[in-house]
């Protein structure tokens, strides 16, 4: 019996015993919000003031150089002008035809159904 009491006492007295660990007196650290955890991403005050972003980069120069090197038929201006010329020519041709036709008397009037027939200019 004395031996049993000695063993129990030794267990309680040891620092790694569960009885000793249960007595954790350390206070928990304060929790930080997500906003407080990443203040740099939310504010981002440096970007607008960074003038270097507005300057030409080698990539911009490459794009500009590629545009300058385009063949004339690859530019939309070429096709716009060409389309305008073609459309204008077509309109001029059609308008010219009708103008010429009109200047040459236009269409002869319809033949009266009671007539034996209509002859002469415009009827042949």
């Amino acid at each position, binding site marked *: 019996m004395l031996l049993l009491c000695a063993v129990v006492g030794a267990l309680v007295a040891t620092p790694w015993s569960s009885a000793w660990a249960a007595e954790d007196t350390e206070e928990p650290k304060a929790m930080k919000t997500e906003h407080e955890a990443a203040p740099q991403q939310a504010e981002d005050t440096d970007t607008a003031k960074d003038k270097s972003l507005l300057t030409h980069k080698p990539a911009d120069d490459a794009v500009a150089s590629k545009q300058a090197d385009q063949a004339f038929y690859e530019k939309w201006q070429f096709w716009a002008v060409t389309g305008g010329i073609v459309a204008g020519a077509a309109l001029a041709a059609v308008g*010219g035809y009708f*103008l*010429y036709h009109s*200047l*040459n*008397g*236009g269409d*002869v*009037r319809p*033949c*009266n159904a*009671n*007539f*034996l*027939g*209509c*002859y*002469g*200019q*415009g*009827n042949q």
Partner: protein
Amino acid sequence: MTRVRGLLGAAALLLLAGGCNSYHYFDITVDFGSVSFEEAGGIKRCEVFVSGADTDNFVLPSTGAKRVACPIDSNWPELGTFEYSTFTDSGSLTFTMNAYNMTPPMDSYICVSGATTLSASSAITQTATITLAQGNQTCITP
């Protein structure tokens, strides 16, 4: 501005090249006059000749046409009216109609004829009548 002048110049050239034509119409009615129904019934072919300020000739419709003229159907004592259109607006136009008693049409086959002359003018439509008269030979052929 230069382009507008160019377009105006082109339009002027087109006007000068094309002229300004307008149709003038002559509605000619053919009347048998003193030609009898029997004589008119013997006509085989009718041909009109235009002379003067314009020159043309055409055959009035025969059997099978929408309106039959020669040989006549029931169109007697008036054969009917034909219209002739032309750009001519000056000078005189003579319309002569010959009726033949045989085909092909030859002067020797003319049995009835008539003519009328009009002065071409700016008038759009003019009307006249050809009154036919019996020729030297009969239209009635055996």
